[in-house]
């Protein structure tokens, strides 16, 4: 090794940084174990959320499908004008009948 910077690099590498104290390692260990992600509860939560979402989809689908079931009600509403028309026709016929009967007399 001839380059002075390489020599310096080697010299620096030969120095060993002080390792963390055992107390610090224990402290970190305790913190890591308390903070360790627990996969099973997470999976249970994910499964619960998924089934909730599925249930919500089913409910929404049922609501969406409902208008076709209530079609007769719409027909009944639609029948409203028809029945009033029939009423009007019969009134006209009655009046016309009176006129015809008058004319015939």
């Amino acid at each position, binding site marked *: 090794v001839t380059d002075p910077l390489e020599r310096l690099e080697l010299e620096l590498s030969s120095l060993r*940084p002080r390792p963390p104290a055992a107390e610090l390692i224990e402290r970190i260990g305790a913190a890591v174990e308390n903070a360790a992600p627990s996969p099973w509860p997470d999976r249970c939560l994910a499964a619960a959320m998924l089934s909730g979402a599925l249930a919500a989809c089913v409910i929404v689908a049922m609501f969406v499908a409902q208008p076709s079931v209530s079609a007769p009600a719409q027909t009944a509403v639609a029948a409203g004008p028809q029945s009033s028309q029939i009423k009007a026709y019969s009134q006209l016929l009655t009046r016309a009948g009176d006129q015809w009967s008058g004319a015939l007399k």
Partner: protein
Amino acid sequence: MRRPELSDPAESWRQCLRLHGAALLLFARQWSTTQADAEDAMQNGFVKFWKTRDRARDPLAYLYACVRSAAMDLGRGRRRRSLNEQAAARPESSLFDPPLERTERQALIESALAQLPGDQREVVVMKIWGGLTFAQIAATLRIPLNTAASRYRYALARLGTELAEVARD
């Protein structure tokens, strides 16, 4: 290249600390006012790393980034960065082993290292004692690879000059 164990046996965090603990503590020390702050930063950074390590593209770079960010957060809460650099320039105890047999040369190196600007010093610590590649250093600091390499070269040149001047005196 040494890498943290990412399989999840109970002892793996311990093994990871055994491999990287000393360099991480030295790295945290670069941005901390006191050794106690550096230890807190290392703890916070390591715990954050451990919880989220699965998302890391490069675990070693991510580990250093977590510790750096924790040290910065702690430092921000207490003092400004410039004050931290000044404090880091006056270590209260030796940064290297064995402190009891600290040679004059070792003291000179520590002193010269402390004189470096923070951004150069952290690159030296990561490269020499952390064993990170320039690509990993660049990822840790979110700087271009060439910048990481040039900071390292400037730092070594400056250290060399500093040590040569002291030796001449």
